């Protein structure tokens, strides 16, 4: 046996090494899972936010869409209703009106609002228009209606055309006043709204004219009736334009494609400004006093522990303090000022801790050297300590600000500004901030709000990534090594 093979691992040891290696894999895997899951969730959110440009396209075309259901007996079929048409928009020019039903885009049938945006997103990238098919609303389709009771079925009504006029689709296709509608494509027609809805669902499944059976002058008659119309609608799917419109529009309570983040962004900016003005001077001054002036006594060490641990109090608890002390006791109302000071209180301990940490990285001999040449305490701090502590303090400040930007719980406590459709005018206005806007949107039931919540999240995450990245680079690169 050679010397080297004597030192090779015997089987038992090899087994131990294998176990050791397994543990290493487990450890690396845990870190990987921890990071990857969150990254995956972020990607899922980014995908969700992808519908923004389609929403922008339908919105700038002049449409506000909403989800409706056509009911026929117990059956309920969803369809997309045009809830609003912007005056002088391409949609209005095309002849679309409030109450119309959207059937298809580019030949693809759309049943719900999400499908509309998915279809728009799936259009070829070079197309700036799409052929859309729709059914005009009840009045434009059939004019005025009367209900006629059905003799053999109590409580059931047929519709009789009371006034078709000259402009309705019905009039143009040969229907006349006094016609009673019996069925369309073999489907019995009852009630006015249901009649229209039945025509919508029938037209959606088949692009051909409907075979309508009606009673005219006491006789049954079958007529082809084309209820759907078609036209080219311009669709602007530019993502940059979509984002810009999103960050510059106000919130909209019903139509997510028209809602924007403007008041939340401005609110966030103003709140953070107040937070900075409140907590930075206080935090830095308190840290400088504790670190550079105060004698090390029992009291200061108790304070130290208290401050360190106040930093870990749940933020929602600070909301109660803001509500009680600032809003009610000081009477500042549920304003930007109150919100800013509340967040200021929240990050004050973080500021003090971080700044003390930064001051402590300046070695004592720097202070000694400065004192020895006759500097006063304030000169020592100003000329010799603060400049070297600055990168650390800046890092702390940036991290504190980014915490304040992302904080929602204490501000939710401060009020019911869950729905703000105006830009704040001053520091005493009520307000919303980006995280609260995300919270609000995420909880709204209408389809589409989760998309804009996702977009707002992406915006927020990008801002925070930039801030935190700057802080980390600053700390790693500019901190003096002693």
């Amino acid at each position: 046996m050679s010397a080297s093979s004597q030192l090779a691992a015997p089987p038992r040891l090899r087994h131990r090494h294998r176990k050791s290696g397994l543990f290493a894999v487990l450890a690396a895997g845990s870190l990987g899972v921890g990071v990857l899951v969150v990254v995956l969730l972020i990607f899922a959110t980014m995908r969700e936010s992808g519908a923004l440009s389609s929403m922008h396209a339908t919105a700038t075309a002049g449409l506000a869409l909403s989800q409706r259901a056509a009911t026929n007996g117990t059956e309920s079929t969803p369809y997309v209703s045009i809830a609003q048409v912007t005056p002088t928009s391409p949609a209005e020019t095309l002849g679309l009106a409030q109450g119309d039903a959207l059937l298809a885009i580019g030949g693809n049938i759309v049943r719900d609002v999400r499908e509309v945006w998915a279809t728009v997103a799936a259009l070829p990238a070079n197309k700036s228009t799409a052929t859309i098919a729709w059914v005009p609303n009840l009045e434009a389709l059939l004019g005025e209606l009367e209900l006629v009771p059905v003799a053999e079925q109590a409580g059931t009504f047929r519709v009789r055309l009371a006034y078709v006029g000259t402009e309705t689709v019905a009039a143009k296709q040969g229907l006349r006043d006094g016609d009673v509608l019996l069925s369309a494509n073999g489907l019995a027609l009852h009630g006015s709204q249901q009649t229209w809805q039945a025509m919508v669902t029938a037209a959606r499944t088949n692009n051909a004219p409907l075979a309508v059976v009606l009673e005219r002058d006491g006789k049954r008659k079958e007529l082809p009736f084309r209820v759907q119309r078609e036209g080219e609608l311009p669709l602007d799917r530019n993502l940059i334009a979509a984002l810009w419109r999103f960050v510059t529009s106000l919130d909209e309570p019903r139509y997510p494609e028209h809602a924007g983040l403007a008041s939340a962004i401005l609110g966030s900016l103003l709140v953070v400004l107040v937070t900075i003005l409140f907590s930075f001077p206080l935090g830095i001054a308190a840290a400088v006093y504790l670190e550079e002036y105060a004698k090390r006594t029992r009291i200061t060490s108790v304070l130290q522990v208290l401050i360190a641990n106040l930093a870990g109090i749940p933020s929602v608890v600070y909301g109660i303090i803001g509500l009680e002390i600032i809003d009610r006791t000081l009477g500042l109302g549920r304003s930007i000022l109150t919100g800013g000071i509340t967040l200021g209180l929240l990050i004050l301990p973080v500021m003090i801790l971080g700044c003390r940490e930064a001051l402590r990285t300046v070695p004592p001999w720097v202070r000694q050297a400065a004192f020895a040449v006759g500097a006063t305490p304030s000169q020592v701090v100003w000329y010799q300590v603060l400049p070297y502590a600055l990168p650390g303090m800046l890092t702390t400040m940036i991290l504190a600000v980014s915490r304040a930007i992302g904080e929602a719980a204490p501000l939710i406590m401060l009020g019911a500004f869950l729905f703000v459709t105006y830009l704040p005018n001053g520091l005493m206005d009520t307000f919303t901030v980006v995280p609260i806007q995300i919270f609000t949107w995420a909880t709204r039931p209408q389809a589409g709000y989760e998309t804009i919540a996702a977009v707002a999240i992406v915006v927020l995450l990008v801002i925070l990534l930039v801030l935190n990245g700057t802080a980390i680079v600053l700390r790693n690169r500019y901190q003096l090594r002693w």
Partner: protein
Amino acid sequence: MQATLTVLPRTPSLAAPRHRRLFEAAVRYTLLGCGLIAVLVAGLTAWTFFAGSLPFFEKVSLGEFLGSIRWAPITVPEGYGTLALIADTAVITGISLLVAVPLGVLAAVFLSEYCSPRLRSFLKPVLEILGGIPTVVYGFFALRTVTPWLQEMFPSIGFWNGLSAGIVMGFMILPLVASLSEDVLYAVPRSLREAAYALGATRGEVILRVVLPAAMSGIGAAFILALSRAIGETMIVALAAGRTPAWPPDPTQPMMTLTTTIVNIATGDHEATAFIWAALFAIGALLFVVTLSLNIASHFIVKRFRELYE
């Protein structure tokens, strides 16, 4: 060339010039004032909760507050028992710690024991940035991504449920656990490891048998801090866990934690003078006392751990 220097007056008047004395005093007392404001804030916080919840405890006994499961502040007869809320909070917190602690500690082991310095200097900021993601964002993840996944796997799970909130909260707390545990592992002295290696232990054995046991109290402190963070977490549960207290606690169904209850009261249309506001302070005080005690406990455990090895 030896230029002459102006010499300070040799007859010493060693008193400070008046303007300098005043300036230095002004600086000193301004700074002190700022420090006092910070202290005052801490004091006011404690006082707010004490004074605010006093009227509540005049009417509701502590036993009922902590022992009854009936939380019904706006129905008649009213119920102010938080046991169900506490149980829900405990279940969600437990789920999150089940995710965060094993993964976080193992991640810390990887960072401090296996990772190359280069990789480590990349991974640590990544963890830090993940830890800086706002909680409302994690709430959105839970509500819109994780819950649908869970529903696909287990159709019986509700749209609002404690499980999804707890899991996501675990991933939110993970960076905190990892970073605190890593600090602790890093502080375990080299000599201990070397001693174990010299006895012929493999790397895994050194970590499992020597480093981790030596760091146990520090990791315990990280655990306590994570616990405190999970108890106080608000946005994730407010978004994803629902607003109905569950008794007995069932994480597949909607749950209501203490923090959600606070949010609920504050965002509801209640008169600010109503008794329910006193209940808000009582719950706030409970959270304040519990989390502050946990933090302080963790603080001293870490301090003792450091003293042991320094």
